[in-house]
């Protein structure tokens, strides 16, 4: 029996602020899973701490709401032990690029086959609107008493340099497009990253829905109001590395596009490279039968509760008479 969208929803009361961009991302995740008919029990959503961190509670799959900044190592641990799980990690920009930036870099180096989605609202939502790492230098949202002191970090470029092998950007109010991105990220073999632009109407009065829609953004040529976001795929941009040798060029163009901001903000797939072995592949290089019997599928004791592991060889080597 086909799973319906409703099957992916819980009855937990959602207490995000009215109009929060998080709702769109939540819907997109649920739609993606439902369109892919991912069995409920096969998926696990991991999250960090923040408004965004509450996401798993609203999704009817396994849901692990972890610690601030640590969602990636938690999620990787589960995926490595059981590669059959569909693992999605989600969290805020403060969570992932502030306190969690170190794990972000190191996860890129591993390329574990899973998806990581950052809810990018440029503020620390749940702690009441402090500047997040994606807020531009000198910006003063209504939640700040003084302009932001720090340069912003570019999540797309950072992911690229870290080694993520699928990098895209979505917008929380373009749920359909975002849903497609999430599906592609899930299908990707390797670590996929999605930077999702997420208005926080409560604290961020700069990067609002209206701002992204471009209500104040006029085409210099024809004077027409135009949305700030545009879709890479609609411009003929192709971020997919089809041959390994293309990687460097494609990275270059992705970086270039990632620097666009202000009146033109690209959405879509910036980069995808399936020629990099996943962490799972690399483990197979050490443990040939890893994918057949990964840690989670090993019987460690027999019916008599005796260990199945045999230490004979190891111990023999140490015997006094050896």
């Amino acid at each position, binding site marked *: 029996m086909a799973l319906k969208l409703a099957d992916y929803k*819980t009855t937990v009361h959602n207490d995000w602020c009215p109009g929060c961009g998080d709702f769109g991302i939540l819907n997109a995740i649920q739609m993606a899973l439902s369109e892919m008919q991912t*069995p*409920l*029990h*096969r998926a*696990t959503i*991991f999250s960090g*701490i923040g408004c965004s961190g*509450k996401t798993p*509670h609203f999704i*009817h*799959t*396994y*849901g*692990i*709401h*972890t*610690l601030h900044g*640590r969602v990636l*190592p*938690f*999620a*990787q*641990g*589960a*995926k*490595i*032990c*059981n590669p*059959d*799980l569909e693992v999605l990690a989600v969290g805020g920009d403060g969570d992932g690029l502030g306190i969690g930036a*170190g794990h972000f*870099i*190191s996860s890129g180096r591993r390329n574990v086959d899973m998806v990581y989605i950052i809810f990018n609202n440029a503020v620390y939502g749940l702690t009441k609107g402090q500047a997040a790492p994606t807020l531009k230098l000198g910006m003063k949202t209504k939640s700040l008493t003084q302009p932001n002191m720090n340069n912003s970090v570019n999540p797309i470029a950072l992911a690229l340099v870290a080694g993520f092998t699928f990098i895209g950007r979505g917008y929380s109010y373009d749920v359909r497009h975002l849903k497609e991105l999430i599906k592609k990220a899930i299908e990707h073999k390797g670590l996929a990253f999605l930077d999702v632009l997420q208005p926080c109407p409560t604290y961020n009065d700069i990067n609002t829905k209206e701002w992204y829609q471009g209500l104040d953004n006029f085409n210099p040529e024809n004077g027409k109001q135009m949305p700030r976001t545009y879709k890479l795929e609609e411009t003929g941009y192709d971020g997919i590395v089809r041959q390994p040798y293309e990687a460097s060029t494609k990275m270059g163009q992705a970086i270039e596009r990632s620097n666009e901001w202000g009146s033109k903000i690209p959405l879509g797939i910036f980069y995808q490279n399936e020629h990099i072995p996943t962490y799972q592949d690399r483990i197979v290089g*050490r*443990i040939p*039968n*890893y994918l057949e*019997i*990964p*840690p*989670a599928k*090993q019987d*460690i*004791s027999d019916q008599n*509760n*005796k*260990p*199945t*592991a*045999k*230490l*004979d*060889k*190891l*111990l023999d080597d*140490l*015997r*006094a*008479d050896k």
Partner: protein
Amino acid sequence: MTQSKISNSLTWVIGGAQGSGVDSAANIFSKACSQAGLYIFGKREYYSNIKGEHSYFTVRVSDKQIRSHVDDINLLVSFDAETLFRHGDKVTKGGGIIYDQDLVNTTIQEVPTIDDQALKKITNMLKKANKSLTVQGMLDYAKDNGTILYNVPYFQLLREFSEKINDHSLSKLTRTVNVMALSASMAVLDFDTTVLTRAIKHIFRAKPKIAELNIAAANYSYNYVKSRFNSTEFRFKLTKVQTSSDIILMQGNQSSAMGKISAGCRFQTYYPITPASDDSEFLESNQIIESTPDGKKDSIVVVQTEDEIAAITMAIGGALTGVRSATATSGPGFSLMTEALGWAGINEVPVVVSLYQRAGPSTGLPTRHEQGDLMFAINCGHGEFPKIVFASGDIEESFYDTIKVFNFAEKYQLPVIHMLDKAIANSIMTCRVFDQYKINIDRGRLLENIIPAGDTGVAGNYLRFKFDENPISSRVRLGTENGIFWNTGDEHTEEGHITEDPDNRIKMMNKRMSKLDLASKEIPAEDKAIAYGHNDPSSGMTIVSWGSTKGAILDAIDQLTVEGKNVKFVQVRLMHPFPSSLVEKMLENTKVLVDIEMNYTGQLGLLIKQNLNRNINYKIVKYNGRSMSSSEIYNALMYIISGNAPRRIVLEHGA
């Protein structure tokens, strides 16, 4: 003057610069002794340095089981000057020193690795004894002590040897100087060369060519010494005895790792740190695991993480899939793990942290020993959550305990901190071969299947934190059909969703914390504390201690027993929840309670006061970074028995 021979009982020390082969020489010596049927206890001391600083290896040999080192040296084996300066004065009367004739004129100032403090100490000592500040001065000093000197002209031997085997790459041959020194000592001890050969072969079993070269060098040196010196003049002697096939020679940095393999730990994360990394590296080198049924190959995935926060959180992530997961670390890494341990606590996730203590605080003495993390481990993490803190007393215990701690973690669904330390990790000893089937695996309430709603059996609508299974609910692996649950670091409902309801909070706190009461009830007495020996009713002296001091205490009280003084020893193993009533009972009839610990504060003493409302009468503590010898403990106990001892005795031995 003829003295009676001392057969198969001595302390042998080899020293040299880090990276110059001190360890392999000591390993060969240890292996040879064990192959000869003897018991050994060895310990390694080294700087936080890669090459050049002074390291040394002490091996005590006996024909009975021994568990510790003693202060005195009977045979000092050296091939550099620093070893002589640092240890020459500790060799006993009738003991011996093997040294390089070419070094006698080396002055102490010429040895750059002797730090100011050591320089001052040694200089003062030599000056006071009117000796020159040279190796010769130190040798004279030793000679005055009654130490016998064996000079071995390594360079000359190497040259001769090189000609003999027709290999003129002296620089390569120089690397056998450690083995030459070692075999010189074998000659002095009149030890069997075939055992020596076998031991060298064993240690270099991965590199047969090198083994061969070393054997040749060893023999050359052995014969030289035999021909030059009259070995019957030396008081100490090693001879082969009956070997037993159920004795193994075990290193303390592998025993717990081996326990992990047996326990079914299949995921270990780590970030490199001394002295914990060896545990992970052993697992990494033995990642493919032979299993029953025959031919089945299991495996352990070992992940080197970016830091210790990732190590613990990744291990917890693994544990959520039902895999027995662990991480191994030392103090600085452990400090970074406490937030995540609270998460495991509130989400009732079984995970094991092997905490290899070293001297703190901060970076401290990173390659030196201390038991300074007990109170921290027990109280670690903000807020209150259940955890078990368990301490192993020696290499053998550490193997079995490792299996037990995984059982505890899964039965009580909580994090377990398994306390080990540098003294265990960097020691080597002969012990009975591990019986890996002695302890059953107990996975607690881990369900492999959930019967869906409507069917009979386990509740249809699975609740991860069900109250009426109080206090321990059934656990499923991520990915189990019909088993969907949530976890959160926030206080949660039975399903695992966030709630701030005050009544639920009380119930959940009670559920979690009461697991400790259950653990206290169920954990067998021998895993809580062990009492050794008995005390004389007149003195009523009992020692209480924990962890790696065990061996030295046992050896010390054995010695006291020989002298007709009986002291009881209570080794606490379950540090938290504290086994108050058992220890209380063990301390009945105790008039003088002596707390022995490798730290400044006397942390177990605090626990005893906290849990037993009982004062410690004497504390014997040590915090100079060097493990306790049984001699020191013996002396301190004698001091206390004498009635003149202060309430706190600080041990200071060790180089």
